[in-house]
């Protein structure tokens, strides 16, 4: 196991820069998740750590050693690929033992480690099978097994669950988390799924267009996003954004008026008379009369366009003066499409963002 440092890392393809000034210190045993939309540079960064892509600029250290020019085989890294990348001509045992054999590990140790890894992942009964005889979930477990038997310094996982169905994905997600808790291995995990990121990562790196947007713990990302992109990317359904005008502590627009509290109220004083983005998560909105969210003077009034009952809760899409917001309300709320409703906002959870730079206004 080891700590890792990425210092001012760049990746350029000709005139295109895929990753810009990437800085990150990963502590020994951390589970770091790179998350972001397609093309944000998360997989490229992971591949640079693995040595599968050259680093155009900057320094990569694993432990105390600079790894920029070290070939992948000498970095002591194991990687789990999106499409498993199991060797089709080898059975499960051979797939898991391959890396150990190349490193000339004694035979009895190889056997012990492969069978041990197989036991942890509950694939002992599959050791003689070829990859084509396995289901997607089993293949994924074998790919994980191949990585863990190596006992590397760092684990890299490139969207390892994206080829699995929803149920299996949830199952494997918790299995990987348990595995990390047991092995305490430094892990870098790439995903575009923010739920995976939130549930698995000790820290999350949110990326967009090759730039790091924010590095923080899952809850801090949720509560204190640094900009509008992070605020919108983390959370499901995403945060609502409405264009609003700031008037002292109040942000208002067509159909809504909300008074900020605490530090945000102070910060908004600098924006008096200016336009800002008012941000509020669907779960921090409530229907009039709801007991969960206090009302006060804050109201958003509009017409229901869509009702999505999910059982435990219902998602409402409400048109507020031409801007649509999603509100997560009680699953048995008596509402229907076309109803005019008043929503209340949890003022302590509201956000505001600079209209031009889209940076969060302090709260």
């Amino acid at each position, binding site marked *: 196991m080891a700590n890792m440092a990425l210092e001012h890392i760049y990746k350029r393809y000709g005139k295109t820069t895929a990753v810009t000034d990437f800085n990150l210190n990963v502590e020994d045993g951390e589970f770091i998740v790179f998350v972001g939309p397609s093309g944000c540079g998360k997989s490229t960064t992971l591949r640079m750590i693995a040595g*599968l892509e050259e680093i155009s600029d900057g320094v990569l250290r694993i432990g105390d050693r600079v790894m920029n020019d070290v070939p992948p*085989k000498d970095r002591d890294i194991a990687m789990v690929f999106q499409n498993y990348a199991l*060797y089709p001509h080898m059975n499960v045992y051979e797939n898991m033992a391959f890396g150990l054999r*190349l490193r000339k590990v004694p035979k009895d140790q190889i056997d012990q480690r492969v069978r041990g890894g197989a036991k942890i992942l509950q694939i002992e009964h599959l050791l003689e099978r070829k990859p084509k005889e396995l289901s997607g979930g089993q293949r994924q477990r074998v790919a994980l097994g*191949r990585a863990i038997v190596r006992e590397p310094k760092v684990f890299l996982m490139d969207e390892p669950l994206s080829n699995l169905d929803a149920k299996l994905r949830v199952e494997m997600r918790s299995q990987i988390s348990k595995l990390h808790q047991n092995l305490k291995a430094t892990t870098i995990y790439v995903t575009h799924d923010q739920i995976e990121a939130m549930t698995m990562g000790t820290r999350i790196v949110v990326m967009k267009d090759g730039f790091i947007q924010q590095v923080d713990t899952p809850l801090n990302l949720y509560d204190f996003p640094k900009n509008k992109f992070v605020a919108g990317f983390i959370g499901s359904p995403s945060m609502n954004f409405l264009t609003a005008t700031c008037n002292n502590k109040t942000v208002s627009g067509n159909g809504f008026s909300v008074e900020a509290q605490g530090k945000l109220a102070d910060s908004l004083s600098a924006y008096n008379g200016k336009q800002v983005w008012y941000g509020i998560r669907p779960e921090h909105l409530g229907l009039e009369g709801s007991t969960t969210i206090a009302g006060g003077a804050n109201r958003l009034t509009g017409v229901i366009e869509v009702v999505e009952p999910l059982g435990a809760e219902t998602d409402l899409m409400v048109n507020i003066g031409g801007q649509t917001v999603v509100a997560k309300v009680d699953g048995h709320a008596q509402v229907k499409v076309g109803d005019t409703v008043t929503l209340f906002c949890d003022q302590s959870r509201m956000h505001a963002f600079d209209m031009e730079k889209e940076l969060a206004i302090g709260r």
Partner: protein
Amino acid sequence: MRRINFRPLVYALLVVYLTIMLLPFLWLLVSSLKTTPEMFSSPFSLPAVLRLSNFVEAWQTGVAKYLLNSLLVTVVSVVAILVVSGLAAYALARSQFPGRNGFYVLLITGYAIPIHTVLVPLYEMLRSAQALNSYIGLIGPYVAFGIPFSVLLLYSFFLDFPKELEEAARLDGCNELQLLARIVAPLSLPGLSSVAIFQGVFIWNEFLLALILISDDALKTLPFGLVSFQGQYAANWPLLLASVTMATLPILLLYVVLQRQFVNSLAGLGK
């Protein structure tokens, strides 16, 4: 609307085609088991007695020697073509280096050069190198002529080879040679088999270069050797046909064994 079932017609056409393809070979096999008078009196009948002695006699009077020569030249040439073309095609499919496309085009252009146009310079080159009338003098040109098409075929095959497997192997600890030997080559058997069959058949049947570059009877390959049989056994056609049957069998067996890989690889050609 009632759909017309074309299947019986397709099968009928296939049977006709198969018959046209197999009849000459069947005739060759049947005739090689007859006596000369029987062959001319009833050329399409089955032999009254199976004269296996035709095969024994042909074997003893030279076929064995020519067969061994052909085997040696073909095996060495095919192995050399596989190694050189495999490495070249893999490098072209995977590496980025200046002039890569130009190099590929240059290599493939070699495929468009007919053997006949280079016969004289080739002969002169081999003569100055004192390589005429030797195995190496025959194997060298076979390898050179075999490389362009083999690179073309393997290049398209390697383009489709999953890069993740190579990356996984590199992270597992493979160096480039281990990667080729333990991952790429075993998983490229369809492509490599196709090259082996294509080049094997070509070299096994090749006549012109052998005729020009070899004159020593001890070094003659089967097609060239069989021609000398023609004069020697002008009156004994079944013996000659037995020799031809023996010459055909190895390559036919090779195709039967590698048939699946051959078809798989051709299905991916032209990407």
